[in-house]
């Protein structure tokens, strides 16, 4: 104890304390935070009939978790009957192939072998196994053809309890979360609704018709592209960032002003 006390005025002592504190915070964070993502190895793809080619891709990149015939293993669910829409959603958003099993597969840059062609082949293979929802046409998901106001009502009634009022995302239980919708393409939004990836429920066509889905897409895309008329959007997550700004910008600014004003003294004559 005495040796530490003796050195507490050492010029480096404050840096040592700072480093220790930073180390503790960082260490604690790495303990609590779920592991990050890592890039996958590249696999080149050749030319053949879509289903056969898709099966090849599947065996190379997916079979280790989903089983050689997509029947599922302890690591991954069966893909029989999930449909082409599920494949397109998961692979085009970079969620699959999964880099690291965690609470939830995060959106990430796609694997190097992924392109429109390979996704189509893989989708064709999975579709051939047991059918399921298919990839929607461009017209079905065109935001320009939807009604924003109607879509907004449906969005508020069905989506915002997890995705937040403008789709900024939110937390779910046990490290799961509803992702922000800022980067989702109209096709991906549609596919997510019909396939219900991860923690999301399925909104099939009898619950929300394809036209209504297009209205919702129009609202989501329209609102996220709309500028913030009131200045900086502060993340569009509501009062939490507003409170932070009030204290960090507002009160700090006024405290500095108070210090400056009272530092002004009448000069002695």
């Amino acid at each position: 104890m005495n040796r530490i006390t003796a050195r507490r005025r050492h010029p480096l002592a404050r840096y040592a304390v700072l480093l220790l504190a930073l180390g503790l915070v960082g260490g604690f964070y790495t303990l609590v935070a779920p592991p990050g993502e890592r890039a996958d190895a590249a696999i080149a793809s050749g030319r053949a009939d879509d289903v056969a080619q898709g099966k090849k891709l599947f065996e190379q990149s997916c079979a280790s978790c989903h089983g050689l015939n997509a029947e599922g293993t302890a690591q991954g669910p069966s893909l029989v009957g999930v449909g082409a829409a599920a494949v397109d959603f998961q692979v085009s958003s970079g969620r699959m192939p999964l880099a690291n099993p965690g609470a939830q597969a995060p959106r990430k840059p796609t694997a190097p072998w992924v392109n429109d062609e390979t996704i189509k082949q893989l989708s064709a293979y999975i579709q051939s196994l047991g059918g399921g929802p298919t990839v929607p046409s461009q017209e079905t998901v065109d935001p320009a053809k939807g009604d924003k106001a109607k879509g907004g009502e449906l969005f508020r009634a069905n989506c915002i309890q997890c995705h937040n009022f403008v789709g900024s995302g939110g937390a779910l239980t046990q490290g799961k979360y509803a992702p922000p919708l800022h980067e989702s393409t109209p096709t991906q939004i549609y596919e997510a609704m019909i396939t219900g990836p991860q923690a999301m429920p399925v909104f099939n066509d009898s619950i929300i018709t394809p036209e209504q889905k297009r209205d919702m897409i129009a609202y989501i895309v329209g609102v996220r592209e709309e500028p913030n008329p009131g200045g900086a959007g502060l993340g569009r997550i509501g009062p939490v960032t507003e409170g932070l700004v009030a204290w960090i910008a507002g009160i700090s600014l006024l405290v500095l002003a108070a210090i400056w004003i009272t530092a002004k003294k009448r000069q002695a004559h």
Partner: protein
Amino acid sequence: MSTGTVPKPIASTSSFIDDRIGAGNFLKRNLRKVFPDHWSFLLGEIALYSFIVLLLTGTFLTFFFKPSMGHVVYDGSYEPLKGIMMSEAYASTLHISFDVRGGLLMRQMHHWAALLFVAGMMVHALRVFFTGAYRKPRELNWLIGVGLLTLALLEGLTGYSLPDDLLSGAGLRITEGVAISLPLVGTWITFFLFGGEYPGEDVVSRFYSLHILLIPGILLALITAHMILMWVQKHTQMPGKGRTNTNVVGAPFYPAFMAKAGAYFMFTFGAIALLGTFAQINPIWLFGPYSPADISAGSQPDFYMGFLEGSLRLMPSWEINFLGFTLPLSVLIPALVPMGIVMTGLALYPFIERWVTGDRSEHHIAERPRNNPHRTSIGISAVTFYGVLWLLGANDEIAAFFHVSLNWTTYVGRVLVFAGPALAYFITYRMCLGLQRSDAAVIGHGVESGVIKRLPSGEYIEVHVPPNEAIEAHMRGKTAIPVIADTSADGGGIPPKGMRGPLGKLRAKLSKAYGGEKIPLDGEHPHEEHAAVGSGEDDKSLTRH
């Protein structure tokens, strides 16, 4: 000041007024009133000036706001809501935001001013608490302040609910949940407030009357009383050179303090205008109209209600059945207990402290926080308690942003809400004593001069010099905290009145722990710690040759 002749128009006008209302005498006495100078004394003015901005912008908003829950179809210029059914209140707020010139700026300034109003009150109250400025004779003004803070929270709650958007509706739903959970009267109060089953048709217009008439009226009256009392009792001052319990050292109200206060008003107004211009607040058009069936992720109250949100989120789902009545403790406890602890604690603290210390004398010199370690520790504990609840009110945003498990934020919060304040108390107490020790060292041995000397023996030492006058006077402003004298030894073992019985014994014990002088400024210091300093003094005698 020069005593040249006063121009006739001014002279005759002023004597006309003076002859009729006798203001000259009043002004002569009060314009020269002296105000002490310290930056922290301006913090309360943040709240005062924000309140003025609130009155101005609020008046503007009332010109256009329609406090009605009648249904209309929106037909304004915000396209994504066109043709949607909504209340008139929400439609008129959209109208203010998009179709009234300057309306959005006014709305945003009103909201930012509201946040700064409450935040300003909080920092002001903390300054008053930690410097003991609430002590006799200022206890009543402290109570008025606590009343103001409570009313400000209520004013914020009612204002937050007025636009009738989806976010404010979520807050209103929680208010309803709390009201209905009250034993015996809950159902009645809820039906009275909402005019029937939730959400009813009345709550917006009722909150409107409260928000623009009743509560601001009481706030204005209490703020006036607060200012008059402060004026009459004079402001406390920091300990320092020439400052005593019977004088005030500082600048006169006119012209120096008036200029400073005026400048500070401009700063506050400017900060609010800047925030209102560059930072979007409460974008109600993004939230959508209120519907009891909808709720958004990340629904939060404004920051000052965050601690109640946090306590609600931390609470386990307890519910008991008492004589056939359901008591939803999972709502009652988080809604009432933290608020009760914080507000009642604030209101009672001056009186509890007086009871413990037996201190009946007047105090006009502020106490440095380190010099009353138990008070400072209690204050920091309370701040920690409040802070943990406040933080956990945003646990979903924390979980989403930092990628930690939502469940774990709750578990950690449940421990922290008890462990945090205890830990904070201990750490603060040790820090206060450490700072007192450092003051005593400065008084006893001076400050390091930066001059290194070599003694004839070859030893190097740093010369210590006495602290400058102002610093020494500031430190010497420290007084011992009063303790109730224990005269039982003189009275043949009989404790004095007020210290008998279990309560009296507790009081005596508390008094002994709370009061007294823990680290005397001019006391004995352990030798080994200041060995170099001792040689420094030797050195001074050497250099005199």
